[in-house]
């Protein structure tokens, strides 16, 4: 009897969620080969939808932005999170309060983050105006309306939002470094900097990989943040793939092309997740052999 209950608790939700993912992925992939516009229709147009999506400026801009935003967001968020974690790890007072404060942005939805930062970064009413008002009138911080820099405003808001999350993971990692190891290093005469660079950080790297992968999949599916912050603008300067998918499906009434864009996004995600999965598999095999 107990075994049946166990099977039910594990397999039913697993099959349901797997079915959900697989079914809708298959459906979207099928749609991407049909001439569907306003509603799904049966038919076959081959790669035409893909050609149409890949031929738009929106998609090429979105993909370039994804590379810039993905790299900037992932690396800078991880570094900020690591820095915060190391500082918090110094057995300081009020650590719990600070930790909650840093983690708090994660509890705010991306739409709120985007909207608030769109005010802060607006040169006419935000940081620039404040500093100008203090008397430094030549101060310029107008990335939000600068086509070449606008994507970095999304990075800034993203870092603010997600670095607390990276901090929490890194902090857990820092705390799980064996005390004996640290003691041994200290006895050998390692100073604080050497202790971190040679002993503690190298033992953190499995966590670092996990943080990077989680942040990267955040980056690839970013939608609400950029929609609230820049709306994809100025012009098309901050388009991201998820915006393009939404745009084709729901604004332009091109379900076929929107599905093609969604499948292209999925392939990008797989490009990140498959190597990660292979790496984990390899490590487990090696650990089992050792």
């Amino acid at each position, binding site marked *: 009897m107990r075994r049946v209950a166990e099977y039910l608790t594990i397999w039913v939700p697993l099959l349901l969620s797997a079915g959900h993912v697989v079914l809708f992925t298959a459906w979207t992939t099928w749609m991407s080969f049909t001439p569907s*516009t*306003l*509603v799904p229709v049966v038919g076959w147009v081959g790669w035409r939808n893909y050609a*149409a999506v890949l*031929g*738009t*400026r*929106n998609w090429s801009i979105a993909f370039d932005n994804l590379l810039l935003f993905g790299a900037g967001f992932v690396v800078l968020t991880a570094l900020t999170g690591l820095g915060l974690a190391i500082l918090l790890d110094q057995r300081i007072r009020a650590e719990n309060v600070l930790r909650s404060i840093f983690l708090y942005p994660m509890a705010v939805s991306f739409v709120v983050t985007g909207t608030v930062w*769109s005010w802060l970064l*607006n*040169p*006419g009413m935000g940081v620039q105006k404040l500093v100008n008002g203090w008397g430094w009138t030549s101060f310029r911080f*107008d990335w*939000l*309306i600068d*086509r070449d820099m606008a994507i970095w405003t999304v990075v800034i808001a993203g870092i603010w939002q997600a670095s607390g999350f990276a901090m929490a993971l890194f902090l857990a990692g820092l705390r799980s470094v064996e005390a004996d190891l640290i003691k041994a290093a200290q006895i050998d005469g390692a100073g604080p900097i050497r202790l971190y660079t040679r002993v503690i950080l190298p033992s953190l790297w499995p966590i670092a990989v996990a943080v990077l992968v989680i942040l990267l999949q955040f980056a690839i599916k970013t939608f609400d943040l950029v929609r609230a912050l*820049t*709306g994809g*603008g*100025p*012009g*098309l*300067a901050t388009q991201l793939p998820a915006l393009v998918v939404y*745009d084709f499906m*729901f*604004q*332009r*009434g*091109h379900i076929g092309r929107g599905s093609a864009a969604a499948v292209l996004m999925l392939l990008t995600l797989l490009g990140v997740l498959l190597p990660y999965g292979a790496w984990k598999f390899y490590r487990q095999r090696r650990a089992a052999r050792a």
Partner: protein
Amino acid sequence: MTTIHRRAVLAGTAALLATTARAQGVKPRLTAISQWSAGSDGAAITALGKKFEERGGVWQHSPVPGFTTDMMNKLRAQIMAGDPPACSQLKGPEIAAWSKIAPTVDLTDIVAAAGYEKVVSPDLARLHKPGGKWAALPLQVYRTNALYLSKRAMDKAKADKIPVTWDDFNALAEKMKAGGVANPIANGGTRPDDGQKFEAALVGISPTAYRAAIMNLDAKALNGPEIKAAFAQTRKIADWMDPNTAAQHFSTNLARFIAGDMGMMIQGGWAQGVLLNAGFKLDDFIIAPGPTNNGKPVFLLNADAFIFWQRKDPDLQAGQKLMAELVMDPAIQTMYSQITGSIPVRSDVDLSGPGWSDGQRETARTLQGAIAANQAVLSLAHNMAQENGMTAAMIDVITEFVKNSKITPEQATTRLAEAVEGAR
């Protein structure tokens, strides 16, 4: 005149009620969805609902706030579930596109009985009768190329003449700049905002080119000199705008416009309602027709409409008939437009009464003149000229051009033609 129409409407009603025996004895009921939930739009449709109830109907309106596309997503879901609303907001070429995915009510007889077609401009009528059958009814008309002038900015520029041509407009903007108006053009930063600048420029330069390139997507016209000239004019406008507006709504900057820090605004008729709602007075600004180089009025049409979806329930069918009659009724159109600031679709409504503003009277006059000169065309920026997919592809090019001064008018023209090809 109105009495005759009323009688015709009544006669039509009687005939319809007689022919549909099933409809007798049922209480007309209408399920409707629209995006109109708040402000003057919400007030107007609520007032329409009251009239519907006064005539013995049950009014079931579910507003979907947000962009029109949000409302469309709800409509799509309902259609796919086989449960469309009896009536929904929909406009422009989307009426023809959507009427292919679900059956619509054939309103031809009821429109004929009301004599409605005679009083609707032909371009507009065409949009509402896909395949020659009326499926939707236009309710109100907006002009998207109205020119709003700030009185205080005019004072700063020491100007009192309303610009007629684009040259006049450019000269006035220069004068305003010299007179200390920080941004001669008031603006928001949204896509339709950018689109309106370009469409107003093109239609003022050449309504013929507008019709060929934007409405008929003629490849030769799309590469023509008028498009380049329109982009060049748009560049001038963009340089006079406040770059800090990012993706703001145009209404964010109305206070600066009235204060004379911004001079002129190219907006739709709805801006009048927004200005008055914000507490500004009609004396604070002037509403004028959009610039036109050939001296004859040009009018960019935007019209809201209701489309009627086929339902089997007799009470819904009776409700659809009642709704159709109300929408075509001059008294209802008067009530509606007086709340929203639009003008009636019917060309025979008298706007001399106290409920109308000078701006609305001028708009109606300009529309008449533009129709007579064959210079009333359908707005691109507000999804009247093309289906949403094509519109979005064209606005992509325009909004990038507005926000990027490195793109030349020649490049923009090429890109526009390419975008049209890609979206076909």
